[in-house]
């Protein structure tokens, strides 16, 4: 039975030791995920906030995000590796392209969702445009922004497996090597580990969201029908 074989795989101490062991593979997977998502946040959040705040370039932004979503990661990965010769750079760039659209859409939609009256009131109280962005629009945008971030993390964790095609580590190594030797228990184990890692990170981010989103915003978001929920993630 496959279930017993998978349990046996997890029970084998050889799979937990050394550079090819589960802890190391998980650490490598986390490393690529964290680097990718951080780069994506640095690029996408300011851009999304700026476009949402000024209200200019929204159409272009939406078109661009949709086109980016359609880019096949394997294509980018092979293209970038042949062009640059670095597996690390190719992997991070290909995954950043995957992570930017949800973060960008989340931060843009977040600022957009702030009601006009609230912004007007803030300006009426004498806030400058910048103060208004930092003190009113950004906090109010947080639920949607974090939703986009969670969605990005889910997609990156599931897709980082492709990095193994370029000889890199991570849980994709277990998956791809399992495929090459048709080792089904190892493939199932790799899939379970990847899914578990994604769920764990998602719970972590959900907990973080609770801490950073101001209570007032959370209450109004909840009454508006849970706008802070992440949209679908992606493999």
């Amino acid at each position, binding site marked *: 039975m496959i279930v017993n074989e998978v349990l046996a795989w997890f029970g084998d101490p050889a799979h937990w030791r050394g550079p090819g062991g589960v802890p190391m593979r998980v650490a490598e997977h986390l490393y690529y995920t964290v680097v990718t998502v951080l780069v994506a946040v640095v690029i996408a959040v300011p851009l999304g906030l700026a476009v949402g705040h000024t209200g200019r370039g929204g159409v272009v932004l939406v078109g661009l995000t949709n086109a980016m979503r359609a880019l096949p990661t394997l294509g980018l990965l092979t293209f970038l*590796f042949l062009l640059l010769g670095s*597996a690390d750079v190719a992997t991070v760039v290909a995954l950043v392209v995957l992570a930017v659209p949800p973060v960008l859409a989340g931060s843009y939609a977040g600022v957009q969702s702030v009601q006009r009256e609230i912004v007007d009131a803030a300006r009426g109280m004498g806030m400058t445009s910048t103060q208004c962005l930092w003190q009113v629009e950004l906090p109010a945008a947080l639920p949607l922004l974090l939703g986009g971030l969670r969605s990005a993390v889910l997609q990156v964790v599931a897709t980082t497996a492709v990095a193994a095609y370029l000889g890199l580590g991570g849980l994709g190594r277990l998956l791809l090597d399992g495929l090459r*030797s048709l080792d089904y228990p190892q493939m199932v184990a790799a899939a379970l580990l990847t899914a578990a890692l994604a769920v764990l990170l998602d719970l972590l981010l959900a907990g973080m969201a609770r801490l950073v989103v101001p209570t007032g915003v959370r209450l109004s978001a909840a009454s508006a029908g849970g706008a802070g929920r992440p949209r679908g993630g992606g493999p």
Partner: protein
Amino acid sequence: MKRIVALVAAILMAAVVTACGSSDPLGGGGEQGGPVVVGSADFAESELLMEIYAAALRQAGVQVQTRPRLGTREITNRALADGSITVMPEYSGNLLQSFDPDATVTAPDAVYAALQQALPDGLEVLEQSQAEDSDVLVVTQQTSQSLGLTSMDQLGPVCGQLTLGAAGEWPGRWQDKIAEVYGCSFREIKTTDAGGPVTLEALRSGQVQVVNLFTTSPDIAANGWVELADPRNMYPAQRILPLVRSGTLSPAGVNALNQVSAKLTTEELTELNRRILEERAVPADLAKQFVG
């Protein structure tokens, strides 16, 4: 409005029909009496050989489909067993090892004879060609000079300082063998690919000092790299031959593939590989020219 719906339906139908007509992604094919399906492993030479076999079969009037880049031998053997493919270009030594891991023969004819014994029911090999493409360990000129390395015989004492780059299946096949035959255990074995760009880049950039390539690879000469001799024949002979599912080829088809084997040489194969990599020649077009 109805016209738009009809148009959409027509486009979808057309797409379904074109797709199923050629490679039939939803069927698989290859049942008894069905079309002949030639597969290939996931490296360039295997795909070229697939095209050559397909071209020869077509010329003999056989209906052929191709399924390139299916993966490793583990996968293509499974696909042959379940009938998803019916013909595979193969390498005698490694093929023998996949069915008989304990095989010790290394000479071409001995390998061929052992292979015919080892093959499971339902699979057979046709005549082997003179063309050979063996695994080979390769180092840069610089490594060769600084360590005095030209043969696997000299690996033993320096092996512990060296990192090997090879495809994911290498350790399973060769790690114990190389320790036994040459007393070599590498400091680390990095998973790269089967003689592809990841392997080449790893050696070029110095991430690894030794790589597993193939003797017909034009990259060895192009980079001035050094092949390590294998005086104790750890790697067995790797003659190129067709592995076929019994009963799926007509006598004309068998004859066509035997003719390919009679004609194929190591030199010609190396040259075809070079033309694909350096001149961007199209494998299918080279194959048509080859069968003439």
